[in-house]
């Protein structure tokens, strides 16, 4: 069905986004890459000069990892630990700020700070405007896939413009896509829509595992569809429940996480995008992660920093730590890439933007760290402060280590010769 041969698609997939913001957002935006996940599919990605493959492979250095790569990984590890510690300490910090500083400012300011603190720490934000925003974001999220499918059908593609259809079968697949888009836009039989999206995603394995991994974000909406009622056409679905939101968050985060590692594995593809759009290399997050690395390897360190930035982002979204902040930053970045950097070809990114906004505006966010938090709170209540501190620190360090280093070490052994 897909015109390009397996190697072609796989190669392409291996071979992919201002104003004044609040200080917190600016800080956070400095912690995320300004490149989005799969934009290399739609935009020019020719590698102008080859990368130094040895940078990503076993060689001299601790555990055979290139010293600059190790340096970037260590920076990511440090940020992971710091933000996890901040997450555990958010309650006492919030209480201190609200009781000792904000109380003096009076009612209005106190309420704003309270809402801002709730927003930043994934607590429910009780404000009318936020509710309206949430409702609108859910509608956009649930219906935008219909627009993307229509766009793909008119561009002779399957799901996304990166999957061109074979002329022999293009028509039938375009009709199937339009049919599915009509169901989605009219919100009819959503469980069927979800099953069809998952089925299509499984079909993508036909064209290689990297293709399917790159398409993982399409599963986020399928998770919500399959858990919606059959009579969905009779309902105005304007909220996503806690269970659905958890699965949405997990799917979205795992997608980012996997794409991050994929960039380290298939480094030429994203380097090719940077060769064609050098401005995307000037990214605050990547600059932060690259700090202290050798200037002699600018493209290699950029690819590594970019990939690990996605791994970090994906991890935070998966575990539900500062989910709103991360998804807001990513939505901002995707929007900028779509409107400013790459233009019309990036229009299908309306869908991931909608998914990110749906998470960002949700009041039903949970964290996978709640069990650890219960343990440390119990220790705190029983007066075992040292044990509490060690639990927090130990958990953060161990988790951060496991997120970064084992996989990084494994990627240095991967054979890229057949890519």
């Amino acid at each position, binding site marked *: 069905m897909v015109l*390009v041969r397996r190697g072609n698609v796989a190669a392409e997939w291996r071979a992919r986004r201002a104003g004044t913001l609040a200080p917190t957002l600016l800080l956070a935006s400095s912690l995320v890459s300004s490149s989005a996940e799969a934009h290399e599919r739609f935009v020019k990605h*020719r590698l102008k000069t080859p990368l130094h493959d040895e940078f990503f492979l076993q060689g001299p250095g601790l555990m055979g990892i290139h010293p600059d790569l190790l340096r970037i990984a260590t920076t990511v590890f440090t940020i992971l630990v710091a933000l996890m510690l901040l997450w555990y300490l958010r309650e006492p910090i919030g209480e201190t700020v609200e009781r000792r500083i904000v109380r003096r400012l009076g009612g209005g300011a106190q309420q704003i700070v309270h809402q801002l603190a709730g927003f930043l720490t994934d607590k429910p934000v009780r404000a009318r405007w936020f509710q309206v925003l949430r409702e609108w974001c859910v509608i956009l999220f649930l219906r935008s896939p219909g627009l993307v499918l229509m766009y793909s059908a008119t561009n*002779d593609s399957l799901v996304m413009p990166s999957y*061109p259809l074979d002329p022999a079968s293009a028509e*039938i697949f375009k009709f199937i896509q339009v049919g599915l888009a009509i169901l989605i836009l009219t919100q009819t039989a959503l469980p*069927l829509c979800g099953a069809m999206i998952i*089925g299509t995603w499984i*079909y993508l394995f*036909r064209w290689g595992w990297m293709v399917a991994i790159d398409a993982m974000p399409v599963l986020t909406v399928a998770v919500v569809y399959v858990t919606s009622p059959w009579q969905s056409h009779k309902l105005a679905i304007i909220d996503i429940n806690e269970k659905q939101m958890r699965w949405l968050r997990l799917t979205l985060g795992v997608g980012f996480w996997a794409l991050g590692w994929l960039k380290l594995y298939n480094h030429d593809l994203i380097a090719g995008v940077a060769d064609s759009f050098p401005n995307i290399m000037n990214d605050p997050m990547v600059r932060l992660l690259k700090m202290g690395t050798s200037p002699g390897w600018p493209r290699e360190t950029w690819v590594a920093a970019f990939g690990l930035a996605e791994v970090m982002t994906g991890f935070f979204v998966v575990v539900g730590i500062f989910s709103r902040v991360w998804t807001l930053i990513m939505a901002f970045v995707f929007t900028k890439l779509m409107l400013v950097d790459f233009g019309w070809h990036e229009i299908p990114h309306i869908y991931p933007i909608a998914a990110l906004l749906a998470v960002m505006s949700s009041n039903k966010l949970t964290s996978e760290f709640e069990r650890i938090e219960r343990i440390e709170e119990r220790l705190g209540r029983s007066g075992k402060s040292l044990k509490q501190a060690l639990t927090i620190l130990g958990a953060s360090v161990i988790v951060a280590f496991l997120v970064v280093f084992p996989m990084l070490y494994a990627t240095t052994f991967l054979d890229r010769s057949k890519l």
Partner: protein
Amino acid sequence: MTFASVRQIVILILLTAGLLFAIDRKMNPRPAEPVPRSTIRLWLDHPSCSGCLTGLEEALSDVPWLEAPKVLEKVPPLEQARQTAGVVNEHRQQVVVAIRDPEKNLKRVDFVALLAALHKAGFSAAQMEFSGLPHYRLEAELAPTCSSPACVESTYKAMGELVLATKPKGWFRWFDSHRVDGVNGALVIYPRMNATVDVTEVLAAVNTLGFEAASLTVHADGAN
């Protein structure tokens, strides 16, 4: 409200995936097989006989960077091709020619020269597909030379519009992007990774833009 059960969802997922695989298998007989290394497939509107093959071999022997041609068998007869939609092209004589020692000779590949050799021997290629390279660009030397900024810009735009206009008709499916090299007076085309390129589409596009291609060469040394 009725919700879907896990069993229902699993069945629907399997049905969808199965349907897509089935359509794919039925309508796209080409399996996802490895692409041969640097080969040119010629589709000739010409009946098949031993005399023709000898003439073709002689014509292609004048092109030093090509190996001996291989005529593909199992071409459907003309009547069947006429009666069956979609197999008209299949009726054409298909000849596969590999590039001799690609590492050495890739720089010498010139499709215009190859077509000229065919024409000289009385053959005309309806289609000429080039495949087997993962990453390369095609450079069509434009005559008359296009070097002024205005010419470069208008040619670039015209090519973009041409691709957009003809894609829905099945042309340029392999096309990724292009640029006009004003210094060398060339139209540079970047196919998709591992794509099979129909070279005749490129040459027809060059003519449509108002140029003649003095040469059409392959460059695999980096993207730019």
